Each structure stands twice: as C-alpha cells, then as structure tokens.
C-alpha cells in the first residue's frame, strides 16, 4: 500500500468505519457524502449507510461511513469511531463501538456517555457546535469541524479534504465561503489532534485512485437513463427515489431532456406512457405507495405494448411505513401485481455498475420487447453512496427494436401494429410517421389495434404478447455467480444485500465454511434454469433478503420447486443487513 501521506498513527486495518449521530437537520448527509468522496480520492472503497428518520427535525439521525480495501460491503456490525452531537444519541448508539474504539461527543455532561469498562473505548468531548458558534458565528459550520476532526482521526490528507470542499462550494458560493469553510475544517483537525493521541488514531494511507467513482444508486440510474437516451422523465416526489429526479433535473437540460412534475403517480406513469408512445425514451421513478398507484397503468403498458421504464426504489412498507429506510418488500408486487396477465421485465441491480448498465439495458429491452421494464432497487442501494469502478461508457448502445422508419412503412403492403409474429414482437410506428397510422388499445384488440373480443382473437393475442417473455430471455442479465463453485453452502440473494452476503461469505470461509452466491439479477421472467442448476450444486441453500415474508423465497419456490429445503435469512428491521446477521444464520442452522 502506498502510504504517501505518511501521517503517523495506528496501522490501518484495511477496514475502518465511523458512525456520526445526531438529529434530523444536523447536516449529517452532507458530511458523510464529503467524507465518502475524500475516502475515494484516497484510493479506498467507501460505503455510506444512513439511518434517517422520516422527519425534518429533532429525531435521531445517523450515518455510518465505512472505508475498506475490498469493494461490495455490508453495513458494519461495529464501528471504530462514534461522533455524536449529543449525549442521548451517544448513549443509544454506543453499543456499536468496537472494543478499543474512539467516541467523540459534544454533550455537556460530565461523565462519558454510556457505561463501559474503562478500557473498552476512549471517550472525548468534542465541541463542534460550540466551536462553530464561537469561532464562526453559526452552528452551520459544525459539519466542517466534524470533517476536520475525522480528517485527523482517519489520518487523511488535508489537501484532499480541502480540494473536495473547494469543488463543492467554489462555483456556487465563491472563494470567501470556501475559505471560511476550510478554516473550520482546519480547526476541527486541530481540535481533534489536541484531544486524541496520534497512536490511537488510524492512518488511512493513499492508494492510487484511478477509474473510480463515488455515487448513489439513484444517481447511477439517473446517469444510466441519460446515457441510454432517455429524454422524458415524469414523476411525483417520493423518498427514496427523488434523487433520480434531482439528478436528472440538473443534468437533463443540457441534453434537451425534459423533467415534468406531475400531480400524482397515476399521471406520472400515464404521461411517461404517452411520451414513450410518441417516440421518446421515457421513464418514471417511484417507491412504496407510488408503485401501488402505478399498477393500473403498468397493466396498460403491458396490454398496449408501450416501452416504458419504471425505477422503483423500495422502502419500508406496508403503507407509508418508514419512508427513509430500506426494505425489499415490493418484489412480488412488481412480479405478480397489477390485474391480468401481461409481459413485464423486472431487473434488480446489486452493484452500482449494474444500476448503470441495467438502466441502459432497460431502455433497450423496453423497446425491443415493447413492454414495461422495471428497475427494482431499494433505499440502501438508492440513497447510500458507494465507490465503484468507472462505468463502461463504451458498452452503451441503443437498440430501438422493431421501430420502423417511414421508408420501412412505405415498403409494407399493410402495417399492423399488433401483427402476430413468431417471436411475439410486432412492428411499431410513431405518430407523425407517414404510413404508420394505427390505434393503440387497452381493450383486447386485433392485429390492427381495434377492439375485438371473440375467443379466437383473444387467445391468439394473449399468446402473442406472452411469447415475448420467452423471446426476451436471451437478452436479460442472467443470475451472477460468486464464490467457489464447489461450496456446499449456497446463498441466493438480490439487490444491495449482495455486499453483506459476499462479506459474510469471506468471513465464513475464514471460519472454514466455503460458500457460493447466486445473485438474482432478473426477477422476471424468472431465470428458473440457472437457479435450479445452482441449487442442484448446493448442499444447503439460504435465501437472503430484506423483508418479512421471504418474497424472493416465494418467487423461487413458485418457479423452480427445488428438492433442497430453501432456508430463509430475513431482515425486516428497516436496516440493511450486516454480514454478522448472515453469518449467525448460517452457523445457527442445524441441518
């Protein structure tokens, strides 16, 4: 490792994390995003893991920021540093400190927060708020002081920290604002150094940072949409999907794209359908209740064969649930929900690269198979920041499927929008195209698009539409295998749970248990063959997912009926998995 910054301190363990704890409104999100970027610039892999209340002010709010040498991480079980804005929060969370860790808390109390054996951790009073008020005239600067303090504790290169902050403020706020912020950072660094002896801190050296990014899943999807040629986005605000919108709202104009805020989710999906029908690559995004509201138009997209992309970032349900926290409890809704049988494609990225790649794929699949495509992620993936290798922009292609040109149309004896074909895909024309006139129908219709209700036509058209589900299989992301092919223990998982599963797998290997993992990346049409194959090579199999009822488990069973007993490893605590949860389940399993 290239420890170029050469700061003294405890040897980095290859893994270090800090928990910042305060209240909603404390600006913790900003701090953690800066830190993640700085860590990335140091060449480390970073993960943020937020635990925010669905409230604007005054309720407990915290984030873990983790730096590691390996990518694809889970939520850490214990942290090395806790930095708390008040004693109450500190006491609540102090159980997360690892033995020997460092706790900094601003509170006014005399005694350290939490009962602990004297040597369990080092406790310090760190007055970020007070210093901010006193030295800079506003509590707003507390986050800079925190960043400075963490800069010291992580042994970070101050120039990197400074440059990230400069980039963030210079354009929007000017030099003077940058300077005062940098002074606050410096103060924090100094104050922390005064408190914590050098040998107690960790020193994260710098490695080469090349070809890497740090961003959230929502941003990766938004960027993917832009790259895929999406130019129409209609949505209604909802956590935790709004970041897709926010990113597009900022970046679309330059690409002549349009973001429309609709009155509700019903309008959002219908508007996207209208735009897609008219020929734009169109998308909407939503979560929880918004997804339920989209079911009707989802069914229309299937019947009318409109290529539309829906990004659904799952949150804790049912109903309003916990809007700001993570869960995977809308899997079966998107696979089996909405009335009637119609073709749909459901993709579930588990890494940031997949968020980007699958979004590009989604737009192609939607047009190639003329059906709705859903990108299903979860809050943990959507809102937390992670490092990733660069997205491979060279892989971005645009395939508009059987969309005809006016010349194609002129060459046809008769244009039938819903022509029955061996692969189920019909030719498509767009409004304004000469020779392309047609009806689009949500009622059962004939090949020309006109309503027709007799049994023979009904059977033919249903089969035509559903045939696409078979035809498309070759173009869908197959499940991805991780780990040793010969391992006796198999995990099946989905989405951002992948990180925790892979990390658990490594720990289990250290403890003598080889594991392998099958990451389901296309939920529908279900990759039954690959899953059966994988299961046939497992001796024990665990389905690991973030919900109560085992929705992935249900889905797998409905499609492959394995001989093996499929065990559930569930987490419905509104928190992402920590690897320890999975390790415990495997070691505790007595079969």
């Amino acid at each position, binding site marked *: 490792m290239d420890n170029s910054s050469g700061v003294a301190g405890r040897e980095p363990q290859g893994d270090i994390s800090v928990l910042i704890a305060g209240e909603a409104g404390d600006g913790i999100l900003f701090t953690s995003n800066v830190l993640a970027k700085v860590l*990335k610039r140091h060449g480390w892999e970073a993960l943020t893991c937020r635990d925010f209340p669905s409230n604007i002010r005054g309720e407990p709010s915290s984030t873990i920021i983790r730096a590691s040498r390996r990518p694809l991480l889970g939520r850490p079980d214990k942290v090395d540093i806790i930095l708390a804005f008040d004693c109450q929060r500190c006491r609540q969370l102090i159980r997360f400190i690892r033995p020997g860790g460092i706790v900094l808390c601003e509170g006014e109390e005399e005694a350290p927060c939490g009962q602990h054996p004297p040597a369990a951790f080092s406790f310090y009073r760190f007055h970020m708020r007070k210093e901010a008020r006193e030295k800079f005239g506003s509590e707003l600067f507390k986050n800079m002081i925190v960043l400075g303090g963490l800069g010291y504790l992580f042994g970070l290169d101050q120039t990197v920290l400074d440059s990230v902050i400069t980039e963030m403020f210079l354009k929007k706020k000017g030099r003077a604002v940058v300077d005062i912020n940098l002074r606050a950072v410096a103060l924090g660094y100094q104050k922390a150094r005064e408190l914590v002896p050098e040998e107690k801190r960790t020193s994260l050296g710098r490695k080469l940072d090349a070809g*890497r*990014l*740090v*961003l959230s899943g929502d941003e990766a999807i938004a*960027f993917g949409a*832009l*790259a*895929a*040629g999406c*130019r*129409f986005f209609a949505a209604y605000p909802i956590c935790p999907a709004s970041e897709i919108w926010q990113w597009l709202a900022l*970046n679309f104009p330059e690409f*002549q*794209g*349009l973001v*429309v805020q*609709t*009155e*509700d989710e*019903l*309008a*959002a999906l*219908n*508007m*996207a*359908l*209208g*735009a*897609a*029908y*008219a*020929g*734009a*690559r*169109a998308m909407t995004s939503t979560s929880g209740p918004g997804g339920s509201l989209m079911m009707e*138009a989802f069914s*229309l997209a299937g019947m*009318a064969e409109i290529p539309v992309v829906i990004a659904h970032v799952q949150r804790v349900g049912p109903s309003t649930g916990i809007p700001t926290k993570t869960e995977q409890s809308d899997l079966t809704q998107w696979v089996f929900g909405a009335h009637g049988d119609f073709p749909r494609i459901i993709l579930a990225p588990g890494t940031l690269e997949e968020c980007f790649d699958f979004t590009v794929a989604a737009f192609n699949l939607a047009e190639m198979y003329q059906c709705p495509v859903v990108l299903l992620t979860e809050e943990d993936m959507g809102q937390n920041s992670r490092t990733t290798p660069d*997205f491979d*922009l*060279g892989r*971005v292609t*645009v395939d*508009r499927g059987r969309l005809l040109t006016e010349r194609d149309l002129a060459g046809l004896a008769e244009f039938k929008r819903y022509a029955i074909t061996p692969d189920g895909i019909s030719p498509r024309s*767009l*409004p*304004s*195209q*000469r020779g*392309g*006139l*047609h*009806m*689009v*129908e*949500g009622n059962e219709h004939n090949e020309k*698009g*006109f*309503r027709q209700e007799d049994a023979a036509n009904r059977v033919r058209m249903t089969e035509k539409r559903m045939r696409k589900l078979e035809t498309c299989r070759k173009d869908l992301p197959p499940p991805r295998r991780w780990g040793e092919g010969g391992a006796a223990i198999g995990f099946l998982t989905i989405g951002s749970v992948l990180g925790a599963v892979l990390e658990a797998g490594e720990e289990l290997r250290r403890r003598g248990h080889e594991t392998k993992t099958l990451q389901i990346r296309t939920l529908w049409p279900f990759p039954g063959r690959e899953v059966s194959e994988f299961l046939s090579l497992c001796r024990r199999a665990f389905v690991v997912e973030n919900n109560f009822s085992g929705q992935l488990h249900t889905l797998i069973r409905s499609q492959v009926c394995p001989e093996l007993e499929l065990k559930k490893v569930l987490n419905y605590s509104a928190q992402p998995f920590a690897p320890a949860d999975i390790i415990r389940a495997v070691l505790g399993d007595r079969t």
Partner: protein
Amino acid sequence: MRKKEDFQFDKPTWCRGCGLYGVLEALKRAAAALDLEPENMVIVTGIGCHGRLNSHFRAFGFHGLHGRVLPLASGVKLANSRLTVAGVSGDGDAYSIGMGHFIHAVRKNIGLTLVVVDNRIYGLTQGQTSPTSSLGFRSISTPFGSKEYPLDGLKLALAAGGSFISRGFSGEVGPLAGLMEQALSHKGFSLVEVLSPCVTHNSVNTYGWFRSRLLKVEQEPGYDPADIRKAWALLDREDRLPVGLVFRREKAAFQEMVLEGRDLALAAADLRPDRARLEKIMEKFR
C-alpha cells in the same frame, strides 16, 4: 385541402341517435377545415362510450385508461409538440375519476384540446349517475334519486386558470365544429365541453331538454370572451346553459415554456450515445 371524409374510418356502433355521432362529425369537420394531416393528429380517448370515437377517426389513436386521457395526451404532446393532440373524454372520465388531472392540465396550460362529451350519465357501464347529473337524478346507481350537487366543468376550468373555455351541443354540429376548429388552433389548453344526449340511458337530458336551455354567448349583447368576470357571471346563471366560446386569453403554454429553444421534438432526438459528453458528466462522480 382535406375533406372530412379523409378522417372517417369504419362505421361507429353507438346507439342510433346518440350525441356522439354529432361529436365525431364535428371533429372531422374541424380537422378538415384546418387541413390537418391525419398523421400529425393524435386522438386520445378515455373509457366510456366516448372512448370508441378514435376507432372511427382516421388519425393516430390511443384508447387509454378511464380518467387518464390528459396525462397520456400530455406525454404525447410534450414528446412531440408538433403534433395536434386532442383528448376525447366523458363526464365520468374527465370530471369524476379524471378530475385531478383536469385541474392540473388546465392550470399548466398544456397545449391540448380536451373534448368532454357530457351526457350526464355513465353510458358504457349501463347508466349510472355522473357528476354532472342533477340533484335527484334517478339511475341504476341512485334508484331513489341522487343526493349530489352537479358540477360545472367550465367554471372549474375558469377557476383553474383556463385559457380557452367553450361549450357546444352535439345537436348543433356546425357551431360545435367551429368551436373545435378554434380549440385545435389554440396554443394552450382548450376545453370543448359538449352537451350530448345519451338516448339509451338518460331520458331526462334529451335533445329537447338541452335545446330549450341553451344560451348562445355570441348572441348575448356585449359579451366579451376576454372578460373573466363576465364569464364567471355567465356560468353562474342557474337557469341556462351557455354555449359558445365562453372565455379565452393568451397565456404561454406549458410546452412553449419547457421546450423553449429546442429545435427538435424530444421524440426526434438523436439517441446515439455521445461518449465525450457522457465522460464529462461522469467526472462529477470522481
């Protein structure tokens, strides 16, 4: 110059005497008068007897969902603002289940024409009371008489900031076609409500019933469709049903504002990935 027959397609199956024949005829005449190309027109319909209209109008057609004509049509218009986009909806479709979209499309002044075929009944579902049915109206859904006050779509459009608000009668196809012609040429949102008898399920609001209550605004001395207070006062009369162009004002249309400076329709965008520009965007995540 196109003829109205250029827009005819197949024979409708509405009940004999249904007001919808008049609506279809008027729309064809208006399209012909404006010499529109069928390929540049999109007609979006809702679910109801009115929803059959675009099966018989030669243009691009989209028969969508009950109540969702406006968001669907808005998506079409915004993706390709060169198209002439009209929605055909019903009193149930636009004013009951579609009310939220109605107010917001009017408010945003999205450049669509919405034809609301108001037969004061749910025709297709066999005759239930609608939000325009009068208090006391008896139907299969309210066999002992409706206890709901009817609403007035024009008043609501006025209150929502509408820029083109009109009403016609399917029993008078000529004037109706004239309104539609103006509406289709309007840049912002244009409403053409059509009083239109359902001869099968509504025995109250017949041709005669409507005719005896019509008040032709262009015959009102001194009526000025630019005067919003006059328009309100007119609509507030309970004795008569104003028909004609009730209100009109100039007001930037949504698509003009949001698509300003774009030279291509969104739908015509060049989708080939521009690697260099994307690389630049990716820099933001470093």
